């Protein structure tokens, strides 16, 4: 499947999660999406990421929307708690569905293939680079952080110290990291120039993902689903 096709499935999903107002229907959709995540590669990592975001969010929504903090601190009236919790549950399910849907789309569009698809698209190469480069940003930041940590360790900053001590050394680590990352921009521009980037109007992309008839059919289905859900919403 072409990497862009996976992302085309997200707009109808977004609309559907907003359209559904029944918690059971949303929960069923969430289960389906989580099963799809589980069926794909790297499912443990993807599910863990999903859980790491959604579980604290659930706790936060429960505390705030359930007015447990309000009643505990200010003694607020909490007679409407069940309704508020139901609304919070709907919100949590919608966010959960979108995140799970995004994980499915990402599974269908691995970053390496997505980068190739971007460069092979009709986008100008500079725009394609701008969109593709953040996909590798975390790797580059990790490498830079390792270098900064090593340099700071040599100067007596202990990155393995207890948390309060590490918090104090955060600036010593984050400062050079930010400055270094910014100074990378000029270096990166030189590297791109050295590879003749944008020197000719049409670049070649090796192993460019093909946009097949199946992709076209899925794209049409996504568009039809979007129109259907939007139409049903407007009709109502």
């Amino acid at each position: 499947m072409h990497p862009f096709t996976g992302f085309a499935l997200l707009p109808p999903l977004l609309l559907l999660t907003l359209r559904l107002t029944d918690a059971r229907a949303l929960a069923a959709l969430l289960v389906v999406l989580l099963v799809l995540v589980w069926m794909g590669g790297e499912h443990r990592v993807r599910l863990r990421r999903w859980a790491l975001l959604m579980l604290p969010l659930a706790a936060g929504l429960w505390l705030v929307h359930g007015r447990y903090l309000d009643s505990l601190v200010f003694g607020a009236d909490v007679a409407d708690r069940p309704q508020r919790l139901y609304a919070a549950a709907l919100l949590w399910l919608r966010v959960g569905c979108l995140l799970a849907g995004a994980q499915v789309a990402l599974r269908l569009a691995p970053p390496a293939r997505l980068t190739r698809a971007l460069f092979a698209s009709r986008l100008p190469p500079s725009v394609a680079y701008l969109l593709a480069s953040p996909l590798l940003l975390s790797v580059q930041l990790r490498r830079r952080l390792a270098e900064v940590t090593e340099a700071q360790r040599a100067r007596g900053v202990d990155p393995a110290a207890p948390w309060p001590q590490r918090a104090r050394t955060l600036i010593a680590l984050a400062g050079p990291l930010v400055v270094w990352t910014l100074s990378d921009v000029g270096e990166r521009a030189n590297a791109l120039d050295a590879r003749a980037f944008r020197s000719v109007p049409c670049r070649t992309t090796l192993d460019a993902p093909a946009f097949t008839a199946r992709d076209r059919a899925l794209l049409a289905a996504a568009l039809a689903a979007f129109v259907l859900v939007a139409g049903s919403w407007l009709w109502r």
Partner: protein
Amino acid sequence: MALIRFAQASLTRAGATAPCLSCIDFALPAGQTLAVVGGSGSGKSTLAGWLAGWVPHALPATEAGVAEFDGAPLSGALPAVRAGQVQLVQGNPYAALTGCAFTVYDEVAFGPENLGLCEEEIRARCREALALCDAEALAVRAPSTLSGGEAQRVALACALAMRPRLLLLDEAFNRLTPAAADRLLERLRVLPMLTLVLFEKSFERAAGADLMLWLDGGVQRACAEAGVLFDRVLPALTASDAVRAAWRSRAADLWRDGVAAPCSAADALTRFAEVADG
């Protein structure tokens, strides 16, 4: 006709009053090797950037005198346009990474892809460049996971995949073992139609070049064969103990007339034997 021609050329950085490079005067025919030598701060990297066509876009500066590449002014053209003809490999190989390649193969292919070549040509260039740099085993690795030496081989492969006419190596082997560096240099020297310019602090690596240019404080002090410059440049450069001992012998007038100055440690031992035999 010379591929590179400088005649009383000088370069002044934007905002500076005095030139950072001056009295640059040499001509290098295509296919030959030039070694630019000098200590730290002598202007080697600035000259490398000038030759790479960075002036004035990536290296804001003004030039005076004659500075030509293939009969055309060295400065003015966009670096990206010149990249198909001139490639610069720097001492920091990570500076050559483009930041949008997930594997070494993608990184090497990125340049030829930008030239709009056909896929077969790109694959042939990548295969050849990786093989030349002993980097075939690295092809599937992520560029960010490479060690310094590995990254240096990949940076060189990236430059070679562009099939440049002029290859500038600015201390490009400083993270490799001497044996690996010499092996790579030997392979580069026999590549057809490739003009090499080495920017080196090591006398022995520079001594194999057809011509040696000595920079000191941004000024060209001399340009001649390595053997001719031996006595003058060696104190400013790094060299093996054997070569340095030969230099001391020559400085102390213990060297026999007619015995040439050595260009390597092995050469020095032979020369010592010749001096002793005499």
